[in-house]
């Protein structure tokens, strides 16, 4: 049970209904940590805590007391917000989410910086210009443009290839390598883990194997999310690299007069280069045409550097024709695709996070705790006071099971004897044979057999009748299962006092009569009767079984 005064949920906010169901890596980290904390928790406590959170959730669709099919992602998100609030405010605990986000932020910054730096350095080197010969654009073209074009084709074709059977073979080949490499990596990671373990202090070290197991079990759940997050980081590098390339290129040509040419030892025809350039310039060709957006055939011929001819054959106008093409190609095949890809991955991450199924073992437990009602059926004794002291309670102070000696033997010399038969046994027992039996049993004639219990008025008349007789011996015949109530006890007391101080009363008990005859008494019932009659502390009253 939750401690009294324990505040389980954070205060409900106005915008709680709009809590975004969008999950982030930080949320996942916190969620996993909080699930881990609950692993060995008391089920009742966790159920009560989580159910409280559920009942605060504005998104629940209520149908009477039962809430039906809540949206798991949104519900878990609300649970997470509550638990975070609780951990941060009440328990002053640090959650792993913020450090994970911080680490990811640092990683992104480092990747961006390295992208910028590598773009700058590479372009700076590729645009190296000594002044005697034009800068050879072939390297730039190959390393910055063509390579990125191939990468782009690969990225576009990968999903298509993945759907064909051919890739299965490829995948198997990769797996073969992985099959060989995997044990090596496993061995290395095990060694690293063991070495790392030695650095961790006492209690944490003891917890590590359990953490490791949990991570191994649960990591596949977030494969997609992690994969796309890393893909996003790679795109960040690409964007930074291309941006740095474009800026460096633009600054270089803006603040220095550069000549660009191309050269090749292989006998590449000028029109081949022209066709490649024209095709590559298709995306912007219709806006910025030949001669400006990409070099014309004449410009290509005019910028080909031939070692034996030096730079004498090169016209100054043509030497400036390459840079717009190179910058535009970098932008269109490097920067823009990376940017679009980054935006697409960003969208994809959102889709992956919003489509997390939370269908695993531990989430299933949490969902059950949140969505199942807490049913409590604790008995509460009535507080209403009704002058609660009863005759019974006063009498109960007598020791239980006090043996009551039958007074039959002591009072044999009194004259009259009478049977009082409960109305419930009237017609069930053969009264004549019963009288005979009892006459034999007690050694005295039973003069009368009276019926009691029809009504209060009838019993009062019977009481009066008994007062007028000199009864030496009374036998009440009753059913053993009919344990005496307050009324029965009072009636017994009234009968014995009406019969006189010298009278004896024996309560003879029978089981359910069969064919007009009494049956054996249940010893347990007999014990209950004896216990109840003993509370009267009256030696004149005894309880016996009718059939011995």
């Amino acid at each position: 049970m939750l401690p009294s005064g324990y505040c389980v949920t954070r205060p409900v906010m106005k915008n709680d209904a709009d809590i975004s169901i969008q999950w982030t890596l930080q949320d996942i980290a916190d969620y996993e940590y909080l699930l881990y904390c609950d692993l060995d928790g008391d089920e009742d406590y966790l159920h009560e805590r989580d159910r409280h959170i559920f009942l605060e959730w504005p998104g629940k669709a209520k149908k009477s007391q039962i809430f039906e099919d809540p949206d798991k992602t949104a519900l878990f998100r609300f649970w997470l917000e509550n638990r975070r609030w609780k951990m941060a405010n009440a328990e002053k605990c640090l959650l792993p989410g913020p450090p994970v986000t911080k680490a990811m932020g640092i990683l992104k910054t480092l990747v961006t910086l390295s992208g910028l730096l590598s773009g700058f350095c590479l372009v700076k080197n590729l645009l190296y210009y000594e002044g005697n010969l034009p800068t050879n654009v072939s390297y730039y073209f190959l390393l910055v443009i063509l390579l990125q074009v191939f990468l782009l084709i690969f990225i576009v074709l990968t999903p298509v290839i993945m759907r064909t059977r051919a890739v299965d073979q490829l995948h198997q080949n990769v797996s073969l390598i992985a099959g060989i490499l995997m044990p090596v990596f496993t061995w290395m990671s095990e060694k690293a883990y063991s070495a790392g373990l030695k650095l961790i202090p006492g209690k944490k070290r003891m917890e590590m194997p359990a953490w490791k197991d949990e991570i191994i079990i649960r990591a596949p759940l977030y494969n997609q999310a992690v994969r796309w997050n890393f893909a996003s980081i790679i795109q960040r590098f690409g964007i930074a690299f291309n941006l740095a390339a474009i800026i460096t290129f633009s600054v270089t040509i803006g603040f220095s007069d550069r000549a660009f040419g191309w050269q090749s030892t292989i006998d590449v025809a000028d029109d081949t280069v022209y066709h490649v350039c024209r095709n590559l310039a298709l995306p912007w060709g219709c806006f910025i045409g030949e001669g400006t957006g990409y070099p014309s055939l004449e410009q290509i011929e005019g910028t080909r550097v031939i070692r034996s001819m030096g730079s004498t054959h090169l016209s100054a106008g043509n030497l400036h024709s390459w840079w717009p093409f190179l910058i535009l190609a970098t932008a269109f095949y490097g920067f823009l695709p990376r940017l679009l890809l980054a935006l697409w991955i960003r969208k994809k991450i959102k889709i992956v996070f919003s489509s997390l199924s939370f269908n695993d073992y531990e989430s299933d437990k949490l969902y059950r705790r949140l969505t199942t009602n807490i049913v409590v059926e604790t008995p509460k004794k009535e507080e209403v006071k009704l002058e609660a002291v009863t005759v019974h309670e006063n009498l109960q102070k007598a020791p239980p099971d006090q043996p009551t000696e039958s007074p039959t033997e002591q009072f044999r010399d009194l004259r009259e004897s009478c049977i009082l038969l409960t109305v419930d046994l009237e017609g069930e027992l053969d009264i004549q044979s019963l009288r005979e039996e009892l006459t034999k049993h007690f050694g005295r004639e039973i003069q009368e057999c009276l019926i009691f219990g029809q009504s209060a008025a009838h019993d009062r008349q019977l009481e009066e009748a008994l007062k007028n007789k000199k009864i030496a011996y009374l036998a009440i015949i009753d059913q053993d299962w009919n344990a005496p109530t307050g009324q029965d006890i009072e009636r017994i007391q009234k009968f014995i006092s009406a019969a006189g101080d010298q009278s004896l009363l024996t309560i003879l008990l029978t089981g359910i009569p069969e064919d007009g005859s009494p049956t054996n008494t249940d010893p347990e019932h007999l014990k209950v009767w004896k216990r109840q009659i003993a509370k009267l502390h009256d030696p004149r009253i005894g309880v016996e079984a009718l059939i011995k």
Partner: protein
Amino acid sequence: MSIMSDLPIFAFVGHPNVGKTSVLSTLAECDTAEIDRTPGTTKVNIRYPLEIDGKTLIQLVDTPGFDHHQDMVEWFENNYSKYSNPAQAFIEEYIKQPRYDHDCRIMKIIADGAIVLYVVDDSNPVRQADKNEMRILSLAGGSRMAVINSHKESGKTREKWLRELRPNFSIIRQFNAHNSWYPERKELLKAIREVDDDFRQRIDSCLQALAADWNNRLRVAAEAITELLRNCLKYRVSENIKGLSDEAIDKKRRELEEKYRNEVRRQISVTERKIRKLFKHTLWQKKLDEHPVRSGDIFAEEIVKALGMTRWQLTVATALVGAAIGGSIDAMMCGTTFLTGTIVGAAGGVLTGYFSTSTLVDVEIPNRLMSMILPSSDKDIQVMAVDNPNFVAVILDWMLLYCHEAMRWSHARRDNNEAKNSKVGFVHQISRQELAIQAAFIAWVKKGKTSNAFPDPMKNFKEFIVELLKKISNGRLLPETKNEKSLPDA
């Protein structure tokens, strides 16, 4: 006529000792209520609020038995027409007389507008007292139904009871307080729903909540069993035996085996406690300890033989575990092994299963020759669960049996008859497909292997246990009896 509050109150009234408290104990799953053959055990009204998410939906009230039915019936017959609320008028007249305390308490709850559930015990004939009480209730007014608490054979008397009850009660239901559990509780609540249409929706909500709660219990029990099995399969004890003599190694082995067994026993005991708490039993454990199977030690040979799998099941299961492990090697080798791993694994599994012994504990002792050749090789003796799937099957059967008893043991019972129970287990009845789930779970825990068919073996295994528990709960899966399975002597 009644001072009806929004909260439906259902008062269980009747003659002393007819089992009002027993019926309520079963209905409210409370085994702490005082139940005794002595009349007047219940001295005050005891309320059992049924709270769902902290909100009381209905309240069941246990009342003392009628103490002065004769005086009461006389008073009601003379006065009922004079008052709009005769029950309240009765209280006002008799409240000052302590001997009418019980009767006033009954009338108080009726005067407050409670719906009366008149409890009778039909194993005894109808008495004048019962007729008086029925008359009192009909004169006191209000909605009411009769509940026949029948725990003995009562052919003749039941007919008589029904004849007496029909004119006074439009709804009459039987309910064996000592042999009822969830389905019967549900049925009784459904019957109560019919008494007063105003409360139908509330009771429907209770029924839905109880169904959800029961389902939740089955899931929590399944989780507890799954986690128990995972922990037991993962657990191993080891000790370095470098330089020890053969005798010392043997002694060490026995010590470790006992240490392992004790830990498994402890984990089982913890899980049983969870399940007991789940099904709200506080008095019941010692009764179950006398069960012929459950009274034994889970590691004893006769228990292992009585519970767990048949030889056929064991052979199939070990073959499946072997195939799963071998298959993962095939996958790692990209199929270049032409399924050799799967075939060898399955064949090894068949042999292991068919010739397996009834031990549940496995011991790994380092090879002396290997130690001499490779001085750096492992010198630890290790004790763990056997790879044989029977380990899981035996513990699972043991726990299912426990759940079966926990579900069905009525909270009104204070006797000890269950020791005569001849039920032994369930695992014999599980299908080949279910064996595959079990095999996947074992392969995952022991070797960390998953497959496409069972991507989350822990969850798959839990769902498998949930299904078993559901079948047990709705009577579609019953434990086999002594005749069907060899059973050790109790």
